[in-house]
């Protein structure tokens, strides 16, 4: 009987914590000593000290230079690694709970041009998926709608919040568009047909150009009595000088990618290409035009039957060598916990380790306009970071022990750990 009570006492806290209460504000200053700090800038500091207070990083340097007396809590992280919180671009975390169940999907609205659709107000802070993502070091996410030609607006959130209001760190920062495809496929899933050219390609591209012309005219016109909500949403793309919104375009084919860039230049719009599977073919062009990319997951198949079998694995290195700014990503919302391994895999195919860390920290932060606050371990920035016992980019050694968002130590329990403990306890007492 005593044993059973003991097991219940051990298990119940885990089950309760699977509710993941958001952490309270940082009350005491903290100094993490002795770890290898991967700054996110492309540099690392061995035997480092990272200090933070009131949610902000106050010290970044070597352990011997840190004033331990100035910090209330010292975390000894000798032999461990510290990273900035990883940032997951382009995903539907919190918008979709169960992929196959329609009632749980809020990622795809009906209709073709929906720039006014906003993901942030449909974002569910209490998704059961989110705690499983945080446990692998992903602490921020870009919540992104899909579907149609212009899908809607994305926002960036931190992953330890009570509601979408305190989750958001950059609201409505991007407008998402899927560029028309050169080729479409025929048939249906049981009888797949062949691929053929999209005969409507030119028409569809022209429709986009016309739409943007109208949106631009609306942005530049005197305010009228009749508001066009869709064009209102797009105003931020057309500001003179610094834009308040980025146009993210989903496009993979090399020729189409170049057309998107030329279109954006002509309209003076800040554009980021998403997917960009053929980027390796046009690195010079992308570099000349200073285009940033959110690239498809490393864990995908080559785009063509005769393409190098490791093309997706080595694309990050090719882009890095060409000096192109890119962020790594992964597709399904529950897969965001595998974002670190997209980086790890690229390292195995030549990408420099610290550049790989940068591709999941500072690079996405810059792309999403949150680099003043997040994305690297630098004094003045938010203390959004985590400690891993081993190399977090390798599943063999990944073990996130502690994580902080804005200096608040977050609860790393999740449903999976709780179920593990529950059944481990069952078998242990049998």
């Amino acid at each position, binding site marked *: 009987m005593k044993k059973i009570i003991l097991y219940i006492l051990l298990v119940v806290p885990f089950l309760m914590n699977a509710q993941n209460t958001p952490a309270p504000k940082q009350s005491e200053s903290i100094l993490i000593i002795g770890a290898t700090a991967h700054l996110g800038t492309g540099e690392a500091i061995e035997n480092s000290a990272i200090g933070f207070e009131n949610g902000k990083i106050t010290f970044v340097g070597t352990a011997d230079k840190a004033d331990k007396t100035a910090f209330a809590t010292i975390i000894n992280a000798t032999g461990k690694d510290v990273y900035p919180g990883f940032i997951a671009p382009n995903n539907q975390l919190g918008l979709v709970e169960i*992929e196959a169940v329609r009632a749980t999907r809020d990622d795809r609205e009906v209709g073709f041009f929906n720039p006014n659709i906003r993901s942030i107000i449909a974002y569910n802070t209490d998704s059961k998926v989110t705690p499983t993502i945080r446990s692998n070091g992903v602490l921020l996410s870009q919540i992104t709608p899909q579907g149609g030609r212009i899908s809607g607006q994305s926002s960036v959130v931190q992953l330890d919040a009570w509601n979408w209001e305190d989750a958001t760190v950059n609201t409505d920062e991007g407008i998402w568009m899927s560029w028309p495809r050169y080729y479409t496929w025929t048939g249906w899933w049981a009888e797949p047909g*062949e691929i053929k050219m999209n005969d409507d390609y030119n028409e569809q591209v022209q429709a986009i150009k016309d739409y943007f012309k109208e949106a631009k005219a609306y942005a530049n016109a005197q305010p009228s009595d009749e508001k066009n909500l869709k064009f209102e949403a797009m105003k931020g793309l057309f500001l003179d000088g610094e834009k308040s919104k980025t146009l993210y375009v989903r496009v993979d084919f090399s020729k189409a990618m170049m057309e998107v860039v030329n279109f954006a230049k002509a309209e003076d719009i800040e554009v980021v290409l998403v997917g960009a599977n053929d980027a390796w073919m046009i690195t010079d062009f992308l570099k000349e035009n200073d285009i940033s990319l959110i690239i498809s997951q490393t864990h995908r198949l080559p785009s063509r039957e*005769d393409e190098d079998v490791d093309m997706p694995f080595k694309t990050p290195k090719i882009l890095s060598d060409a000096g192109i700014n890119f962020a790594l990503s992964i597709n399904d919302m529950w897969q965001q916990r595998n974002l670190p391994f997209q980086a790890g895999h690229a*390292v195995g195919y030549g990408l420099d380790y610290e550049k790989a860390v940068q591709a999941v920290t500072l690079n996405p932060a810059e792309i999403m306009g949150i680099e003043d606050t997040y994305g690297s371990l630098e004094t003045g920035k938010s203390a959004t970071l985590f400690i891993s016992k081993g190399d977090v980019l390798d599943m063999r050694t990944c*073990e996130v022990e502690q994580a902080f968002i804005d200096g608040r130590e977050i609860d790393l329990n999740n449903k999976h750990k709780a179920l593990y403990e529950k059944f481990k306890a069952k078998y242990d007492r049998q």
Partner: protein
Amino acid sequence: MTYPFTAFGWENKPKQETYLIKNATVWTNEADGILENTDVLVEAGKIKKVGKDLKARGAIEIDGTGKHLTSGIIDEHSHIAINRGVNEGTQYSSAEVRIGDVVNSDDINIYRQLAGGVTTAQLLHGSANPIGGQAALIKFRWGATPEQMKFENADGFIKFALGENVKQSNWGDNYRNRFPQTRMGVEQVYEDHFTRAREYEAARKADPINTRRDLEMDCLLEILNKERFVTCHSYVQSEINMLMKVAENHGFVLNTFTHILEGYKVADKMAKHGAGGSSFSDWWAYKSEVLDAIPYNGALMHSQGVTVAFNSDDAEMARRLNQEAAKAVMYGGLSEEEAWKFVTLNPAKLLHIDDRVGSVKAGKDADIVLWSTNPLAVYARAEKTFVDGVLYYDLEQEAAKRAAVQTERARLIQKMLDAKIGGEATQPVRNNKQHLYHCGHLELGSFMD
């Protein structure tokens, strides 16, 4: 002419040679464990010897210093290399159909997976039906014909499936009429078919001339008579338990539960019954029935004595099963040696081929892989992949092969341009893009622009 007639085909098919891999870290998967500075001799398609300071005159020597030598990865659940469809979804029992009739040896994914250290895969029927079709087991002998790829004298397997896919839960509003639409109905499909199979057996015995031969029933009888083995797509604990009971009632053992994402909840019962578990490492949240799926599933089943494998069910992931195995270290703290068996020895056991493959042991087939570093590391690359002592993938040759692909591509483009200039008839762009099958999603994979 290349073999196969596609990119990365061979102009001259590689042959069995004698190889001596020297001074590698060898993951034996046997009682010897992981051996450092060890040599492996391959001869006539078999592992001839494993030991230190081996010598073999006339052998091609490969320096394994700093590298790791393992047996080839075995994927228990694959849908590559199949022509024109994996689901005979018209009836809820299609035991008579055979994947072996539709194997496609030209699939580039075979080559891509060789580059990921995979040497054998079980090609499965999809999960549209409670009783699916007969599986095919192939070795990745790139360049061979479908018949030549089949694993000789292997036990026959058949695919069963439980849960949402067979209930057609996610097929849309037009699919609400085919029995079964609930898990309750699924059990009765098996009870009914096994009962009728025994009746058919009796009738055939009593009057073979007037009792019509039934290929579907023949297959079901093979299962009941323990001549064919079942691998069953399954998710929740209720249905897993159900099928084990059905099997026990009809006198056979359910060989493998595949996907088996709630296997951890009934691992003790699985071990008692004798069923194996071939799981995803960490997939979840894609359907209702996987809401309690946890990445610790493999480790928990393993702790209760279940033979656990990690599979792919996905052409992309199959290239990285070495990394998926590492997730058993990450989630559940398995030793590296035990985790590696999840993608080598354990699937071999589940497929009844562990007498021939699955470990680095003298006498077994030379299906081995030389890795650049610890195979469980995310940084690892397969450098050489052997099947039956034939070097089917060699990183050193890749550059030359890729150059050949580019040359051929350029030649074909030039030929087309010349033809066009010469006034020959043209047609709009067409492409029979290969289709990537899953049974977990019942959807097609990705296409390029």
